[in-house]
C-alpha cells in the first residue's frame, strides 16, 4: 500500500516516523477475524454489484429511447428494477457494515489484549511510571 513507503527522515524533535511493521501487525490482528471480515466483504461486493447494475439498465433505457421504443411499460419496469437494486445496495451495504463493525471491535479487543499481555512480559523499566505496575 502507498503508506508502506520508507519512513521519512525526522524533521522535528521527537519520534515521528511510522513503525515499518505497522501493517504487518494490523494484518496479523485482522487475520484473526478473517471469517467475519470475509463475510462482510462478500456482502459489500453484492452491495457494489447492486449499485452498478442500474448503470447497465440506464444504458439499456437510453438505447431503447434512441431506437424509438415507445412502450411506457418497458420503461416503468426498468425504473422499478433500478429502484429494487437501489434498495438491495443499501441493504447489503448495511449488513456488510454491521458485520465489519462487529469484526473490528473484536480486532480492537484482540489488539488491546495483546498489548496488555505484552506489557506484562516487558521488563519493568520499559513501563516507567510508578503506579501502574507494582509487583509484589
Amino acid at each position, binding site marked *: *500500500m*502507498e*503508506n*508502506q*513507503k520508507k*519512513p*521519512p527522515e525526522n524533521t*522535528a*524533535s521527537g519520534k*515521528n516516523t*511510522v*513503525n515499518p*511493521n*505497522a501493517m504487518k*501487525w*494490523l494484518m496479523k490482528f*485482522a487475520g484473526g477475524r478473517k471469517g467475519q471480515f470475509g463475510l*462482510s*466483504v462478500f*456482502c*459489500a*461486493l453484492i452491495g*457494489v454489484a447492486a*449499485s*452498478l447494475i442500474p*448503470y*447497465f439498465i440506464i*444504458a439499456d433505457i*437510453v*438505447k431503447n429511447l*434512441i431506437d424509438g421504443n415507445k412502450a411506457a411499460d418497458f420503461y416503468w419496469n426498468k425504473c422499478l428494477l433500478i429502484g429494487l437494486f437501489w434498495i438491495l445496495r443499501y441493504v447489503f451495504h448495511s449488513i*456488510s*457494515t454491521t*458485520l*465489519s*463493525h462487529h*469484526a*473490528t*471491535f473484536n*480486532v*480492537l479487543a484482540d*489488539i488491546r489484549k*495483546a*498489548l496488555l499481555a*505484552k506489557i506484562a*512480559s*516487558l*521488563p*519493568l523499566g*520499559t*513501563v*516507567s*511510571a*510508578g*503506579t*501502574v*505496575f*507494582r*509487583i*509484589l
Partner: protein
Amino acid sequence: MQEQSSGSYKNTICERVDSIETTLAHIVPEFTSNICGAIVIFIYMLTVDWRVTLWSLIAVVLGFAAFAVMMSSMPKWFPQTVVKSKILNDTAVEYINGIEVIKAFGQSKTSYGKFVKAAQEGADCFIDWMRSQNFWQNFGMASFPATLLGMLPAGVHFMMNGSLTQADMILLIILSFGVMTPLIIAFGYTDDISMISIIMGEVADIMDKEDLKRPEKSKGLPADNSIELSDVHFAYKEKEILHGVNMQIKPGTINALVGPSGSGKSTIAKLIASLWDVNSGSIRIGNTDLRDISLSDMGKYIAYVSQENYLFNLSVMDNIRIGNSSATDEEVMNAAKQCGCHDFIMQLENGYQTICGGAGGHLSGGERQRIAIARAMLKNAPIVILDEATSYTDPESEAVIQSALSRLIQGKTVLMIAHRLSTVSDCDCIYVIQDGNVAAAGTHEELLRDCMLYKNMWNAHISVKDNEEVPA
C-alpha cells in the same frame, strides 16, 4: 530500551486504538468491494470497446499522479502534526499543573508565551500542510472523474469512421460514470489508511519491544535460598549504572544495601526481583540463573516490598489475597494480624470487605504499607526484598511496621535497602554500594572500622537522629 510513560501506554491502548474503529470497519469491506466493482466495470468496458476505454484512462492517470504526490508527502506531514499536537498538549498540561508556581513567581507571561508559541506552531503545521497540498488536491479532484476528457474525442472519431456504434458509445459513457463512483469512494479512504498505519505503528512499537526473556517452564529450580551476583553489569538506556557487582548472600541471613542515593542499590534489588535483566554477568538464586526460572516460579521465591505499594480497587481482603490467591479468609486475616493491620481494618466501615479505591485512597501511607507487608507475609516466599519499605512512613506507624517486618522476615533470606542506618545495623551483612560497585561489605562493626564511607554515613545519620530527638 525506549522508555514510555504509563500515560502514553494507556493512551495507545485506550484512546488511540479506539480511534481507528470506524475507519477500519468501513475500509475493509468498502475499499475492497469498490475497487473490485470498478475493475469489473472496467473489464466489461474493455469488452465493449477497448480503444475508447483506454482513452478514458487519460484522466484517471492524471488523477492518480496528483494523489500519488499527496500520498507521498503524507508521511512527512502527518507525524509532524502529531508531534506538534503533542507538544501543544504537554505545554497546556504543564501550564495548568504548574499554575500555582507560575502565579506565585509571576511567571505567567513567559509560560503563557510558551503556550502561545506551541499553539501557533501547531496551527502553522496544519496550515502549511494544507497549503502544500492545495494544488494537487484540486487538480486530482478535478481530473480524476473527467473520463470524458479522453473518451469523447476518441469515441467521436471511431464513430465517424464507423468502427463504433452509437449504442455502444452511449453504454460506454454511462458506464464511465459507473466506474468512477466506486473509485472515488475507495480513494476517499486513503487519508484514513495513513492514519491507521500511524496508530498501528504505535501498537507495533509496543509489540516489537524486547521481552524480559524467561522460559515458560523453569530449566532448573533453586537448590537453596542463597543469592549470588557475579560481575553484574546493568545499563539503563545508555548509562551504565552497575559496573560489575559481586555479592554472595547466604541463605537465611539478613542483608542490607546502603549507599548514597543514585549509587545503584535499588537497581540491584530490582534486578534480583527479576523486574529487569542484567546486561552481562549473572544473578543466581540457589545456584540457578534467574534467566532459567519461569516468571511464575520466580514469584514463589521472591517477595518484593517497595515504598509505594499499589492497592487495587478491590476489598482489603482481596488486596491482601493478591499475595496468594488460594489463601482462605482466615489465612488472610492471620497475615493481617501479624502485620498489625487487623485493628485498623476492623475499624473501616465494612471491615475486610471495604473497597480500597484506586490507589488505596481511604488508607494512610503507613496502613497501605502494612497491607503490602501482609501480602508478602501471605505469599510466604523464602526470599524477601525490602526496597526502602519504611522510608515514607510516619514515626508512629514505623514502630508497627518494623515489628510487622521483623515477623515477615523470620527465617527468610532478606535483602533490605534503607535510609536509616539504625534499622540495618543488626544485619548479618551490610553491603556499601558506591557508584555502581560494592565498596565494602561486612557487619556494622567491621564497616565502622574499615570503611570510611560507611563511617561518614553513620556519623551523619547519628547526628540527624540526635537532632530529631531534641524536643522542639
